[in-house]
């Protein structure tokens, strides 16, 4: 077994969390080695992959341009019959955990929407305020400066007018570095209609360069292709960070699948072991170890690494590793409209309704985020019109009508951290003989009650306001790809996996930052919060290595 080197900070995962920690460590003069399970790829390759997808795979099959390597499997969305299914899912809402992430260098930010909502002070105190879920072990005031740093680190555009900011009741310590992106016609119309039914459609803070270049990346020009890939890197994705990390002396090893975390004296982490595509094993030592592989891959690795001293898995004396799996259960409504709601202008998502996620009702049922989808519906309209066997002028007219006068409204519900929503190791193994993840998922009554009494009626009200002539609700809950909770944060080591700095309670030199640490799922996209936690962990890591 080769001993492949060493660094002060060893990071598994080159997504947004790993990259932000790497940069801060390098800037502090520490050495950094990053291990990425999947390959490095060039942007042009992904754009070509996307453009060569048949039209039916260009929407919603967000992993289709990212065929996984055999040693780094992720959800396949290219083949209809996904026989080599990687994620083993069970439970009444198995479908809602069909998570699409990308095991490539750069991670899931390759195909994220780019939305950067902050959570609210109330979101962090569900237990105290509403008697459900968990409280965060610190307040919004502690998190706020990290949000600011995150927004500047990745380049977030957002409103300077406090009336348009979120959270509505928490003062920002700094303005957004860039102004909001303009709405297209659909979003403008939706904003007007939504206001009439008490739903406030705000311009979304987003990691998309607005009007100017930022950190060497160009401004958004409305390619309307944010997922599955921004052709020009106007949307932040972590792959753009990698050359900068190497320029600062960071080492990045691609196609290196970490499969074991090795403990040693005082149950500290001694090393991690990884397999290369030839299935040869390598050992890497370090002073501090960061596992930032997302809230499925990180708990999976911790459980797989169990040893005599840690029989329940690394960092798992609490038995919470792999539990509390969260995502926002999603419903959507397909509408036909009398008047156009033009999509396809500007980014694919540029606004959301969040006032519906807050309120006293949260003691009874959950809150949610609403939005219209802004991806161009031209293919959707064309496919429907062609099915009608129209030709000539009638075909063109119907394509235009069905593209413009149909819409998709989405609602994403806040989940609760439920211990039975759990990741364990499946008996099925992958190409490297690592157990595939098995996840049991049930959205729970707190969510179901909300759908019945609150969110679906609200969707109908919004649809009515838009003049919908038909309304088709999705048959079940779907995934939102915001994987959270599997290494939950708390002050008490008996009931949580990591401390307020995302340091494992059980191992003084192991950090597990990201979505996995979030004690509440909230209704909004998790990435900015994950990024803030990454920076908080980075502060703790640098402090720990400088001062012992």
């Amino acid at each position, binding site marked *: 077994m080769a001993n492949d080197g060493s660094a002060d900070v060893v990071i598994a995962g080159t997504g947004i969390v790993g990259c932000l920690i790497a940069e801060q460590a390098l800037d502090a003069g520490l050495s950094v080695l990053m291990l990425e399970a999947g390959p490095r790829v060039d942007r042009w390759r992904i754009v070509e992959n996307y453009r060569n997808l048949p039209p039916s795979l260009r929407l919603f099959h967000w992993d289709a341009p990212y065929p996984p390597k055999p040693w780094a499997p992720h959800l396949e969305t290219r083949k209809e019959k996904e026989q080599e299914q990687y994620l083993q899912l069970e439970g009444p809402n198995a479908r809602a955990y069909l998570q699409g992430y990308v095991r490539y260098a750069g991670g899931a930010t390759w195909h994220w929407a780019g939305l950067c909502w902050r959570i609210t002070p109330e979101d962090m105190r569900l237990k105290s305020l509403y008697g459900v879920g968990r409280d965060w072990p610190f307040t919004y005031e502690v998190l706020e400066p990290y949000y600011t740093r995150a927004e500047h680190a990745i380049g977030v555009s957002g409103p300077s007018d406090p009336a348009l900011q979120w959270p509505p009741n928490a003062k920002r310590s700094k303005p957004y570095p860039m102004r909001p992106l303009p709405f297209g016609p659909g979003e403008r119309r939706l904003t007007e209609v939504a206001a009439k039914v008490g739903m406030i459609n705000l311009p979304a803070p987003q990691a998309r360069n607005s*009007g100017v270049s930022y950190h060497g990346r160009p401004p958004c020009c409305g390619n*309307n292709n944010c997922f599955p890939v921004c052709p020009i890197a106007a949307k932040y994705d972590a792959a753009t960070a990698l050359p900068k990390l190497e320029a600062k002396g960071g080492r990045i090893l691609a196609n290196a699948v970490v499969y074991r975390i090795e403990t040693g004296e005082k149950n500290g982490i001694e090393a991690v072991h990884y397999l290369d595509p030839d299935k040869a094993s390598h050992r890497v030592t370090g002073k501090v170890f960061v596992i930032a592989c997302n809230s499925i891959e990180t708990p999976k690795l911790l459980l797989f690494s169990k040893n005599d001293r840690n029989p329940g898995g690394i960092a798992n004396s609490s038995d919470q590793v792999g539990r509390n799996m969260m995502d926002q259960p999603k419903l959507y409504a397909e509408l036909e409209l009398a008047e156009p709601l033009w999509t396809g202008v500007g980014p694919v998502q540029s606004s959301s309704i969040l006032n519906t996620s807050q309120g006293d009702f949260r003691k009874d049922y959950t809150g949610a985020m609403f939005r219209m989808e802004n991806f161009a519906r031209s293919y959707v309209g064309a496919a429907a019109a062609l099915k009608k066997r129209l030709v000539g002028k009638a075909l063109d007219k119907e394509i235009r009508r069905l593209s413009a006068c149909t819409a998709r409204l989405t609602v994403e519900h806040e989940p609760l951290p439920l211990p039975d929503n759990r990741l364990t190791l499946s008996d099925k193994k992958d190409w490297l003989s690592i157990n595939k993840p098995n996840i049991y998922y049930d959205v729970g009554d707190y969510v179901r009650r909300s759908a019945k009494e609150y969110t679906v009626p609200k969707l109908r009200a919004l649809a009515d306001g838009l003049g919908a002539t038909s309304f088709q609700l999705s048959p079940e809950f779907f995934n939102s790809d915001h994987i959270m909770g599997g290494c939950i944060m708390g002050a008490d080591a008996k009931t949580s996996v990591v401390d307020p700095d995302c340091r494992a309670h059980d191992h003084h030199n192991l950090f597990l930052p990201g979505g996995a640490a979030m004690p509440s799922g909230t209704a909004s996209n998790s990435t900015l919060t994950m990024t803030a936690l990454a920076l908080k962990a980075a502060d703790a890591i640098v402090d720990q290595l400088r001062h012992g």
Partner: protein
Amino acid sequence: MEISSLLIPHHLHEEVGNRIGAAMSALNPSLSEQVAGLLAIARNKNARIVEEFFPDVPEGPLKETALAIISAWYLGVVQDADDAEVFAFEYALMYQPTRDVMTIPSYAISGPNAWPADAPPLENMPDF
């Protein structure tokens, strides 16, 4: 290309047409006979646009082939299924009827923040 021009009243790229022809022939050995059949119906009616002869195309293989040719030009694939070869994206006609508003994904027509919040009337139809 002749039958395509008759079935679709728009500017058609010859390169795309050649690829459609090749892909469809590979899937359908009767393609050239069917195309000849469609052309005969069109000539019979002195048709110059599709509306002038399409009602006379009988249900069955001839009509299905005509619709398949139209679909291929609009979608840019012969079959919209996994592993299909894509021979047109930017030139796929499906994007043209809304080209005045909706971006062809990944082919931006705008500049930094330069897209409008106004849209032309639904009754408009871009030239193509």
